[in-house]
């Protein structure tokens, strides 16, 4: 059943995050699909956006005035699929077909034409944010007041196109574009600040002309406050560097990069659900 957005209080949002984490872990086990750590680190950001802030109507997914949310880190699709179903874009029962031959739910988002609620078919990193910039510029040309939020991974900030896009967004003073970086400190095969010189990440975004801030990416109150304040009056695009924990919510997954690709066993699913308080 779809949940009524904008009617959940802080505790309700936090409860929903735990439930979604449990669903993601169950799905990973059931379908033997990876990227668990990356999904768990961004759940709170997705919940804050979809169940508190974004102006969306699941009944009218193509409403030209809707806010746009782009999962630029497309490998977080298993998390997004759960969120969109619970938000009412399609029945939760559809998720039963995840990973099935001939189905829609792959390990990355399909195109907007093929699944309601999706704004961009991401998966190749560094595409979603620039597409979001195009959408924000389109809104300006067409005189529409929607916001565009793009969720990036820290590893994705390796991609040159992100910084090309950052420079153009700043030059164009696109104040209705917000980037949230899910800064979980890991990329596929190593520490994100060691593979590439990512730090100081917030200073990089500032140097590129953005109004950048840091936040605890699991602090629901802070996330909802920041995302609700768009545009923020600075006249600049907004970058939220969200400090997160890869594998957040399950003690034996937290900050363990093996869970980028590892699939949980049945007993690990049970232990995870117990920790999350989801039966």
């Amino acid at each position, binding site marked *: 059943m779809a949940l009524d957005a904008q009617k959940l209080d802080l505790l309700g949002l936090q409860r929903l995050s735990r439930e979604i984490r449990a669903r993601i872990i169950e799905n990973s086990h059931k379908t033997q699909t990876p990227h668990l750590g990356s999904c768990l680190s961004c759940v709170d950001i997705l919940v804050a956006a979809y169940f508190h802030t974004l102006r969306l109507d699941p009944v009218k997914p193509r409403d*030209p005035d809707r806010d746009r949310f782009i999962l630029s880190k497309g490998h977080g699709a298993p998390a997004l699929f759960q969120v969109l179903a619970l938000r009412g874009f399609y029945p939760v029962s559809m998720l039963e077909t995840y990973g099935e031959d001939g189905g829609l739910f792959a390990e990355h988002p399909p*195109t*907007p*034409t093929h699944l309601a609620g999706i*704004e*961009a*078919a991401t998966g*190749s990193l*560094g*595409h979603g944010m*620039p*597409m*979001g*910039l*195009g*959408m*924000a*510029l*389109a*809104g*300006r*040309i*067409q005189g529409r007041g929607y916001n565009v939020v793009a969720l990036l991974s820290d590893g994705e900030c390796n991609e*040159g*196109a992100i910084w*090309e*896009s950052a*420079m*153009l967004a700043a*030059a*164009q003073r696109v104040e209705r574009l917000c980037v949230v970086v899910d800064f979980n400190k890991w990329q596929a095969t190593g520490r994100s600040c060691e593979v590439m010189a990512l730090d100081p990440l917030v200073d990089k975004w500032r140097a590129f002309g953005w109004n950048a801030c840091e936040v605890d990416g699991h602090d629901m109150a802070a996330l909802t406050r920041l995302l609700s304040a768009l545009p923020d009056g600075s006249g600049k695009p907004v970058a939220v560097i969200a400090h997160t924990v890869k594998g957040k919510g399950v003690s034996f997954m937290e900050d363990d990069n093996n869970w980028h690709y590892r699939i949980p066993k049945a007993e690990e699913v049970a232990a995870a659900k117990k920790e999350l308080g989801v039966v």
Partner: protein
Amino acid sequence: MRNAFADEVTKLGKEDPRLVLLSGDIGNKLFDGFKEHAEARFFNCGVAEANMMSVASGMALCGLRPIIYTITPFTTTRCLEQIRVDACYHKAPVIIVGTGAGLSYAELGPTHHSLEDMAILRTLPEMTVLAPCDQTELRLLLRAALELDGPAYMRIGKKGEPTIHATPPELRIGKAITVREGNDVCLISTGNIMPEVLKAAELLAAQGVSARVESFHTVKPLDETRLAEVFAAYSVVAVVEEHSRLGGLGGSIAEWRVRQGGARARMLSFGAADVFMHEVGSQEYARRKFGLTAENIAAQVRAAAHAA
């Protein structure tokens, strides 16, 4: 051709509020007319073509009609993955314009040559590939491409190319135009090499070989009806393009022939060899090097006609 493009896009920009022009830090003076009427719809995206392609796709998904313009290699192979994923996979109606295509910028060296663009882009699902032979076809193709519901790529020359069509022909994407009638052989041309092909037809005529000339302004989708007709009617069909002989119009037609099983005519293919041009030279020099001259085309076609 680029001046005709600027002129036509300026007119279209006035007519169609959905039209957006994105340039990769070239042609600024060229688009002063466009900016005069639609400054809010002109974006100099800087020297950052990957981002430009994604931005255009995002705009197209919001109902706008973006046109991207820069030098051919940078608007094609430089940002190939953005074309594949953001424009084609999303079926976003973006028009990609590559200026100075083929050997137009021969003097600038191989970084600015584009002899692979059609071969690469035509393999992408949803993509339409266009190569006008002159400014008239360019203007008509640009208008037609704006009516498509998916992405299109158009490669154009530089400036000063002769006008082939004295009056605007009836033009539809995917339908070849007969530029010259003839009885003995058929020359199929795409893009800016057309003047050389027409000259070859003149040379052949002087030698008693009557050549029909077809303008294949659309490389994808191929006009298979016209191909079936000419391959049945003529003993020799020659394909000419200022592009590699690998995978361009000649390659597409060869693939089509395999699917047909038995197109009768002898097929010749004229285009650039599979090499980088390491020596300096003008477009004329480069064309001579690759045998893309009226004299060479006429000589080889005549020999094939006699052998047939």
